[in-house]
């Protein structure tokens, strides 16, 4: 950088800093600087000033980094190498069977090494992986913004709790019914909305999530209202995980002749949950290669083009929405059986936003990214309990930053091959991975 440019840059930065500082002070000052206490207030001037200063400093730092040549070049290179476009597979890549099998075995044997607390966190993390995978079908693959995803989660959870209360459903029957019930709810909700403008879906699902929560809270006689409802413990082939079984039953540990431990129940939940998550991952992987999955992504990219080519957009979107809802219902059953108790406070809008944050940070559409984001976003708050207050704030900031910086996610999306993996076909077509720019 030559010397003539430098003073100009500094003046520009100083102006920017002053401007940002003043605006930040006007915007953030009243709320952070004057704290209401009853009908009076106390001043926190230092906090307001430092907050505005931090915002201004951040702005200057970003402009400075973008202004210098080295940084902009580094950023360019980084942008070129990750995210942005889509890599389409050639079809002759080796599928990493060994790695997948290793991860699968490691995941399956995890409970034998973990203590009860870690296992609890792992179960919760896997529930969010399941929720993230479900929402990823809707938001990531089909491009439909669903802000009431937690409603389907609630449907699954309450199906187990109320089903056992009124018609004697158990864990397994609830696990089988939940996807269908949640999918059916999704269909009823989405069918009218999917025909029109995409943005409407977001607000309708938001309203629907709130309707479900309000009904669960207010319908005291049926759902137990704010007090919630108990959910039954799981059984394995009809064997219970309690110390002594109910009348006529044999508890799990007696049947197998092993000493009693309260952890068996959680081991069991973990293993079933892990198998279900693996099944969903596999299904999503297969779906993306199937015509239906390709239609989802095509519709996300250009709806008008798809419709003019004769794609039934309502059916395609509906299938994505229902599959997503079904996955949410499954997660709900696991949540209920793990907690042993459900109440409406578990199904607020924050939960929907958290799941959306998982999908967005995981990189809309990438299964691997979503799993990673779900694990990080559920395990990190456990580690950083002191900063729990700031969790939502950080999620919000991350969502905005992600959308500005990398609207298609951190992980570069790879798309399954368009042609069979036979060697001859590959040679006829291109030898390089197709680059579809965004």
């Amino acid at each position, binding site marked *: 950088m030559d010397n003539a440019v430098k003073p100009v840059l500094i003046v520009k930065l100083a102006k920017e800093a002053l401007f940002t500082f003043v605006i930040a002070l006007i915007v953030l000052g009243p709320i952070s600087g004057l704290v209401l206490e009853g009908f009076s207030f106390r001043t926190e001037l230092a906090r307001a000033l430092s907050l505005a200063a931090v915002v201004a400093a951040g702005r200057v730092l970003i402009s400075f980094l973008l202004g210098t040549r080295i940084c902009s070049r580094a950023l360019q290179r980084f942008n070129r190498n990750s995210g942005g476009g889509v890599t389409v597979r050639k079809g002759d890549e080796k599928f990493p069977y060994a790695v997948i099998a290793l991860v699968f075995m490691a995941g399956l044997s995890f409970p034998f090494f973990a203590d009860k607390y870690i296992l609890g966190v792992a179960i919760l993390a896997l529930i969010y992986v399941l929720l993230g995978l479900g929402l990823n079908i809707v938001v990531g693959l089909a491009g439909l913004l669903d802000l009431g995803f937690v409603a389907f989660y609630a449907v699954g959870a309450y199906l187990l709790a109320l089903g056992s209360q009124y018609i004697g459903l158990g864990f397994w029957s609830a696990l089988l019914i939940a996807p269908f019930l949640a999918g059916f709810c999704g269909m009823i909700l989405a069918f009218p909305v999917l025909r029109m403008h995409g943005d409407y879906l977001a607000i309708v699902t938001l309203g629907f999530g709130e309707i479900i929560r309000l*009904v669960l809270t207010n319908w005291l006689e049926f759902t137990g209202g704010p007090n919630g409802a108990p959910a039954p413990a799981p059984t394995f082939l009809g064997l219970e995980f309690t110390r002594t079984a109910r009348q006529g039953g044999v508890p799990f540990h007696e049947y197998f002749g092993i000493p009693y431990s309260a952890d068996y129940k959680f081991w069991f939940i973990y293993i079933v949950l892990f198998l279900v998550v693996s099944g969903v991952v596999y299904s999503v992987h297969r779906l993306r290669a199937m015509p239906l999955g390709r239609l989802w992504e095509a519709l996300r990219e250009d709806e008008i083009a798809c419709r003019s080519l004769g794609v039934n957009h309502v059916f395609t979107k509906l299938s994505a929405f229902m599959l997503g809802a079904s996955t949410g219902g499954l997660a709900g059953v696991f949540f209920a059986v793990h907690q042993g108790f459900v109440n409406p406070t578990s199904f607020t809008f924050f939960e929907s936003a958290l799941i959306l944050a998982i999908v967005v940070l995981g990189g809309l559409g990438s299964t691997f990214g979503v799993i990673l984001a779900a694990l990080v976003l559920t395990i990190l708050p456990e580690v950083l309990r002191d900063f729990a207050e700031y969790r939502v704030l950080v999620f919000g900031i991350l969502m905005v930053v992600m959308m500005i910086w990398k609207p298609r996610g951190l992980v570069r999306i790879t798309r399954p091959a368009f042609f069979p993996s036979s060697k001859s076909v590959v040679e006829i077509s291109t030898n390089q991975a197709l680059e579809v720019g965004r």
Partner: protein
Amino acid sequence: MDFYILAQQLVNGITLGAIYGLIAVGYTMVYGVIRMINFAHGDVYMVSAYIAAITLAVLHFFGVQSVPFALITVLVITCVITGFYGWSIERVAYRPLRGSTKLAPLISAIGISLMLQSYVQIAQGARDQGVPVLISGAFRLGSDRDFVQITYMQVVILAASFIAMAILTYVINHTQIGRQCRATQQNRGISAILGVNTDRIISTVFVIGAGTAAVGGTLVTINYGSFNFFIGFVMGIKAFTAAVLGGIGSLPGAILGGLLLGLTEALFAGYVSTDYKDVFAFALLIIILFFRPYGLMGQPEIQKV
């Protein structure tokens, strides 16, 4: 006797509806110019409620006793500061996303909404806040036993909403900026070619939307006296329902939709159930979208290729 209950519900409904209308203006105008639902709008309303209460507390601290003076000062200061919120949100979260994917601005808006809620919660605490009663007393029409009560506060709300709407309608229909807004709404590209600074117009629209939401927020705060960091969520959905009911993108539609929603909700609360009045509003939204997605006064949107 029944007549008086009905009349009372109608009065309450119209007051509520005026507020919904004021907040719906923000949704409808932003949708008009950039075809995007500003999810953070409900939280801008929430922020304005806090700013109004803080301004009131500051005025009280300096010993301002005159109620009309306090009311007008609070309205003006709240509008200005909330307008800055609207401007900064557009600048930070939406402008960099022009021409990005369809989903990006929506997710960014959710992010802003979470940020605002969390920011207010951290800065001001999670508990409910309150403001003192500023205007008490009421008109009573009818006999001693059966009467319709119109509080002075309701009169103030109606008057303030009416004035705000009148100013807004004048600005949109008769000024240079209003003309540019309408041009941008019709066709952004052509407007830019003809010399309209569309970026500035979009910012202006956000400021206007935030400002009218601030009028609503101030009036609600002074009327009900109690608020928390989460009020923006339900209010946001309801105001959006009002905007869709009237036809999103249409200014008179937003006012009409607000009044209709307020009336039907008050009648539902009065005759059916108060527990489910929010459910009613959300269900109404789904029903409108099913039968008349372009609302009462909107035009069906034709997508050109």
